């Protein structure tokens, strides 16, 4: 009996324990809920305060002032808005064929337009021969060429810079806005850059940096049905949506609430406009009355609001995943696995991949616009609401909302979507949580949402200004304390000395106080504008404030804390870009009756738990992962090749989609794409030994093919000839290489007359410099190393440094530019002992010994701060500048790397800019049974179109930060680089020189580093160091050659192959 009781107790306690666990799980899961996002009150105006660190800034010329400050000046003077009709201008030609401009409807007012175009003289669109039969483009959705003939004629702006100058007559002194009508022609998926001056002066500083936005759309009309065999949706691709557009010029980054307005006096004015980067037709220029938007009360009154007119029917739900158009290729449909996320597709979002939401991390950039269509069943007053989610913790998102292209009332100019912890469904409402009502007539409407920075613009500005001013202060202090720099770039200050800073900088005490107050104020502002929540980026401001508080108490701490100030500044510069980063995700929009209660917008704890369990169980379903991205079942009869890719999931998904859509459809070859972690080299070797190696591996380092080829594990690719497969022609090795790839890139992947890999990616290097600092110093960027040595004293005098990479990579260009090589022409012994190589070595070492270059520095941080206004950076640096340092836009430029003047074969003096470009390549394993099929895949992958398209897709996913580094020189031209940037890249690539691989080559870099360290760091004789290194290198090479003597016996050229004749001659 007792035993039974015990048993019973145990049973009960087990059940109770399980229940407790279950409840705990539910509680934890539902704990993610938080009361809905609360709307809050915020002030909003465009006028900006003047810089407290510059006296009399308000007296500066408008062309030097930010727009917000110009507005403040206008406000003081009480200028009124122009209210008359638009003053529009059209283009035409006179009898001589010169371009003229006239007021719309008055051809007699025509005056000649002066200016120039990059390609030829200024001309009308209709005069361009290429467009004689209209503008043609390929529509990928129909795979057909579309001809547009009804483009209204106007100024044709080509890819380069087009400048026009003309006179206008203004009827009254007032504030005007500028409106442009345009049609962008096919280009590189970028916006057209615009700038304009009035009477040779910018009306405000930002007038130099405007843009005309391109529009994009999805081309999969049947995107709902586009799935793989598992049921995962495949994301439609984005294509350019061509069409006539018009735009009132506004800040391209959404910094200001209203479109730009500027003051013009009565009478004639000279207007100059430039158009750059993308080709297009400008078919209308108008000066218009600045748009005025009424307040919500007026809006209600004007549309005759009455309680009875409020819509009473059911909700009208519009899925937002497919926008009519977007202005950024990166904002598009994304996937979300939340239980409650809805979609037009009938499937559970947590079981398969569904593209069921819009936006995400990439819907964050100010100025980006998206437009949707929806319709309402009856005329009346509606609440509009969204199911949305903030992407960043405690970051509110500001958006402009237009209905039918008009802003309905003032509050919609910069509406704040308050931070929500997870998904939330809520109507647009005012600070008291009372929903706004919108008057909509029966029928179809559009809603346009534009990203804005919002009132945070003031915080942005004051931080930017204080940072500039603090940098200047640091420079002043360094001049007083005469601090030196350590080799790593930090300031070295004698901490045992006292400086009476106040004696030299009398205002320092007040300045420090001003900074501190400003930081505190900005912090408060950010707090209130995010609904009293503190985003993580604000901590940098707190740090800076605390630091300056410390200085306020004791000025003596400043000289010894210069490095701390610099760290604080770099933290603040991250804050600058974070403030603008306001990403948001939207699921659907509803138009509904007043007081509608949103059901099921937030998944419950139980639903989350269910999703978790289903996904966990699904993760054991290997079949599902194998079929991921396949459009058809693979059967035994199919030819299927296996490809290893060691790239991130997104890269692989895009590749899989392209294979399914294009490659398999065309050649009928199935491809099993395997995403392998880390370096695929490490996985391929054991697989090869075990006999289960893949057929193809892509994204392989260029050093690997040689090592594998020596051990006969690879298939030579140069033997592949052009042919046909399944009735589809494919290219041979020579055809593919000939026009699209640089010969030099093949150098490392050649072994004994054969080429064992095909280049895939290839970086580039360039000389980056700060144009603003160079202008200030009055120097030009260097073209040769001699030029560099000439400007070094000027740079050093002002406390600036040149950034150049210390190490073997830094020495290589010097070696090549002096005419040296790493190995002799057979690749059998080291050639570092030649006079040319030695000269290069000495010159390189002198950069550090004589010119005191910094060994190791964070070029990006110091380029931004201006301490290193010039240096050699690679493509990663370029992407970083573009992505993370938008505040530097227009303040830097790039040029090909400096070189050495030499005389070429034709007897001309040229600048030898030889440098290597690091890349990856693709290989076919020798164990592959499907060699021809593998080659067909490789030639498809390496072809111009595929590389260009892949580059576009990658850009759409990652933005400029992930720009595809294709080695295909034709595909690179299609990437959204500017014309000037492409010029630099092409010029640099002309001088690509790659290092051949040979037996035992790994010793070269090892012992070169030793020789460099001995010479530069330890001050030993360069000749001795080099000779020691060569002895070791040759010994190892000899040892390796002995191991492979039978291979070398029938022709001792391990590294240079006759398959590349052009290389052999070099």
């Amino acid at each position, binding site marked *: 009996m007792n035993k039974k009781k015990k048993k019973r107790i145990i049973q009960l306690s087990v059940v109770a324990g399980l229940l407790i666990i279950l409840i705990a799980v539910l509680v934890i899961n539902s704990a993610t809920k938080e009361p809905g996002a609360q709307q809050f009150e915020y002030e909003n105006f465009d006028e900006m305060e003047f810089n407290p660190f510059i006296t009399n800034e308000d007296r500066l010329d408008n062309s030097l002032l930010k727009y917000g400050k110009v507005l403040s000046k206008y406000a003081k003077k009480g200028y009124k808005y122009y209210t008359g009709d638009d003053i529009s201008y059209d283009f035409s030609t006179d009898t001589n064929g010169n371009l003229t401009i006239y007021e719309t409807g008055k051809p007699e007012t025509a005056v000649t337009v002066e200016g120039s175009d990059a390609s030829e003289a200024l001309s009308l669109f209709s005069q361009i021969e290429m467009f004689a039969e209209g503008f043609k483009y390929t529509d990928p959705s129909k795979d057909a060429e579309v001809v547009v003939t009804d483009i209204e004629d106007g100024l044709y702006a080509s890819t380069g810079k087009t400048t026009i100058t003309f006179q206008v007559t203004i009827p009254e002194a007032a504030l005007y806005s500028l409106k442009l009508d345009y049609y962008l022609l096919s280009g590189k998926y970028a916006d057209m850059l615009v700038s304009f001056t009035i009477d040779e002066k910018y009306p405000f500083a930002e007038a130099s940096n405007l843009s005309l936005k391109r529009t994009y759309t999805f081309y999969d009309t049947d995107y709902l049905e586009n799935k793989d065999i598992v049921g995962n949706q495949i994301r439609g691709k984005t294509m350019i949506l061509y069409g006539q557009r018009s735009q009132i010029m506004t800040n391209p980054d959404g910094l200001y609430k209203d479109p730009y307005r500027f003051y013009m006096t009565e009478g004639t004015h000279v207007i100059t406009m430039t158009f750059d980067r993308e080709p297009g037709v400008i078919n209308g220029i108008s000066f218009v009355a600045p748009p005025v938007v009424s307040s919500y009360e007026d809006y209600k009154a004007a549309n005759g609001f009455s309680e009875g007119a409020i819509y009473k029917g059911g909700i009208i739900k519009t899925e937002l995943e497919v926008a009519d158009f977007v202005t950024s290729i990166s904002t598009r449909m994304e996937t979300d696995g939340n239980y409650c996320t809805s979609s037009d597709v009938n499937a559970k979002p947590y079981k398969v991949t569904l593209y069921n939401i819009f936006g995400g991390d990439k819907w964050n950039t100010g100025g980006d616009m998206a437009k949707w269509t929806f319709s309402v069943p009856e005329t009346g007053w509606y609440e509009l609401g969204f199911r949305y989610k903030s992407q960043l913790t405690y970051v509110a998102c500001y958006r402009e909302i237009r209905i039918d292209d008009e802003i309905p009332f003032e509050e919609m100019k910069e509406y704040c979507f308050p931070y929500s912890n997870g998904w939330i469904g809520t109507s647009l409402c005012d600070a008291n949580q009372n929903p706004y009502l919108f008057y909509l007539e029966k029928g179809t409407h559009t809603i346009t949402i534009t990203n804005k920075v919002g009132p945070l613009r003031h915080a942005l500005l004051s931080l930017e200004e204080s940072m500039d001013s603090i940098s200047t202060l640091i420079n002043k202090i360094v001049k007083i304390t005469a601090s030196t720099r350590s080799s790593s770039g930090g300031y070295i200050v004698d901490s*045992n000395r006292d400086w009476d800073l106040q004696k030299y900088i009398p205002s320092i005490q007040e300045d420090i106080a001003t900074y501190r107050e400003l930081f505190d104020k900005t912090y408060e502002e950010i707090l209130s504008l995010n609904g009293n929540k503190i985003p993580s980026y604000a901590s940098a401001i707190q740090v800076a404030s605390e630091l300056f508080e410390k200085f306020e108490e004791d000025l003596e701490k400043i000289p010894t804390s210069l*490095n701390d100030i610099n760290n604080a500044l770099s933290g603040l510069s991250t804050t600058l870009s974070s403030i603008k980063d306001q990403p948001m995700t939207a699921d659907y929009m509803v138009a509904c009756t007043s007081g509608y209660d949103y059901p099921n917008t937030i998944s419950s704890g139980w639903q989350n738990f269910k999703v978790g369990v289903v996904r966990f169980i699904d993760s054991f379903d290997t079949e599902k992962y194998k079929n991921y991205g396949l459009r058809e079942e693979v059967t035994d009869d199919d030819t299927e090749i296996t490809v290893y890719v060691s790239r991130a999931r997104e890269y692989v998904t895009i590749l899989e989609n392209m294979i399914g859509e294009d490659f398999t459809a065309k050649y009928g070859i199935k491809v099993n794409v395997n995403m392998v972690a880390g370096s695929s080299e490490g996985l391929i070797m054991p697989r090869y030994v075990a006999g289960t190696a893949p057929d193809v591996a892509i994204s392989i380092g260029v050093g690997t093919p040689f090592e594998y080829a020596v051990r006969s594990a690879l298939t030579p690719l140069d033997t592949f000839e052009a042919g046909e497969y399944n009735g589809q022609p494919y290219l041979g090795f020579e055809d593919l290489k000939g026009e699209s790839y640089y010969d030099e890139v093949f150098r490392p992947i050649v072994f004994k007359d054969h080429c064992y890999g095909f280049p895939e990616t290839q970086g580039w290097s360039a000389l980056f410099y700060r144009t603003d600092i160079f202008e200030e110093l009055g120097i030009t960027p260097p073209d040769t190393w001699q030029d560099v040595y000439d400007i070094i004293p000027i740079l050093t005098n002002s406390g600036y440094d040149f950034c150049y990479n210390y190490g073997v990579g830094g020495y290589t260009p010097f070696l090549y530019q002096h005419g040296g090589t790493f190995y002799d022409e057979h690749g059998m012994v080291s050639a570092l002992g030649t006079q040319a190589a030695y000269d290069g070595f000495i010159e390189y070492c002198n950069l550090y010994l004589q010119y005191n270059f910094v060994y190791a520095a964070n070029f990006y941080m110091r380029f931004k701060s201006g301490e290193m206004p010039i240096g050699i950076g690679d493509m990663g640096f370029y992407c970083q500048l573009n992505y993370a340092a938008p505040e530097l836009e227009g303040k830097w430029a790039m040029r090909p790397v400096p070189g050495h003047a030499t005389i070429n074969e034709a007897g001309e003096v040229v600048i030898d800019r030889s440098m290597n470009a690091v890349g990856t390549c693709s290989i076919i394993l020798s164990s592959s049974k499907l060699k021809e099929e593998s080659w067909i895949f490789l030639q498809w992958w390496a072809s111009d179109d595929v590389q260009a398209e892949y580059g576009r897709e990658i850009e759409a996913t990652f933005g400029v930060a992930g720009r595809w580094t294709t080695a295909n020189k034709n595909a690179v031209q299609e990437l959204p680089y500017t014309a000037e940037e492409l010029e630099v890249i092409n010029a640099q690539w002309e001088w690509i020189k790659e290092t051949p691989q040979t037996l035992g080559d790994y010793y070269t870099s090892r012992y070169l580093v030793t020789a460099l360290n001995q010479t530069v760091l330890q001050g030993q004789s360069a000749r001795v160091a080099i000779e020691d290194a060569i002895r070791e290198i040759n010994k190892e090479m000899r040892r390796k050659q002995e191991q492979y003597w039978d291979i070398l016996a029938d022709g001792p050229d391990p590294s240079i192959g006759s398959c590349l004749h052009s290389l052999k001659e070099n």
Partner: protein
Amino acid sequence: MAKNNDSNKKESAVPAVQKPKKRFFNVEKRFGYTLHEIWRYKMSYGLIAPFFIVFIIFSLLPLLASTALSFTYWSILEDPVFTGLDNYQYLFVDDPLFLKAFSNTLYYAVIVGPCGYVASYFFAWLINQVPDKFRALYVLAFYAPSLTSGVAMAVVWGVMFSNDSTGYLNALLLKLGFIYEPIMWTQDVNLIMPVTIVVALWSSLGTGFLSFVAGFRGVDRELYDAAAVDGVTSRFQRLLYVDIPQTMPQLLFAAVLQITGAFTVGGTMAGHPSPEDAGLTIMLHLGDYSGTRFEVGYASAIAVVLSVLILGLGRIAFKLLQDKE
């Protein structure tokens, strides 16, 4: 059956009353007899089997394979080629880097081995004095560093010994005015090994330390009383006359671990390749040949030499510390 009983003395250990069983093995043969004995103690063998199978597959077989491969040239991708003693000839006569690696490893082992060993014992003894409640906490605190080796080495010590003025140590020395230029801790040829040793000592309280802690727990409390009666007065004396003799098995176990650990040291703070090979250890040298140079045969030869070295030192440790009863 009865004949077997007569011919084998050991068999008589089986109680005679037991029914004669069917024998699986011919116990007259020596091998058969062994198998028979194994069968008899099948329970014990069954208990050690999981370890033994894993040991054979992952330790013994690779060791044998490695020994066989050390007489060949093998680039992994091609078949091995028999080359006799060439690898050993190159190793002992021709390879200057092996000497460098050997001396670096020895330098490391001589300091980290004994110091770590003594430190382990000392700290375990100290912790043994701590009241039971807090002991686990202390053990965890001392043991944790050896668990977090890889990541912690890179993060914590990387910041500590950073080559620029932002490194903790450099910053401190700069602040105190001892140096004017930051020291290149992980790049200076003379500092690489010392820095590595410092970091290694920090993380040297590993499994050996745990075994000591357990060993001290296992010492019979009554012995302390007995020792006190015999005139032991201080804790140090108690350590000398009671604790050390009582923890001999643990001392041996830890010594073997310590030797193995010290000689198979892999990465140093300088990474690989290090300036002038100042941070080259035998394991790195081995990895260099098998990974970068595709010479697994030679790498195997290095591995064999290293194994022999460790085995030899292990024997010495056994001789010194084994129970002499």
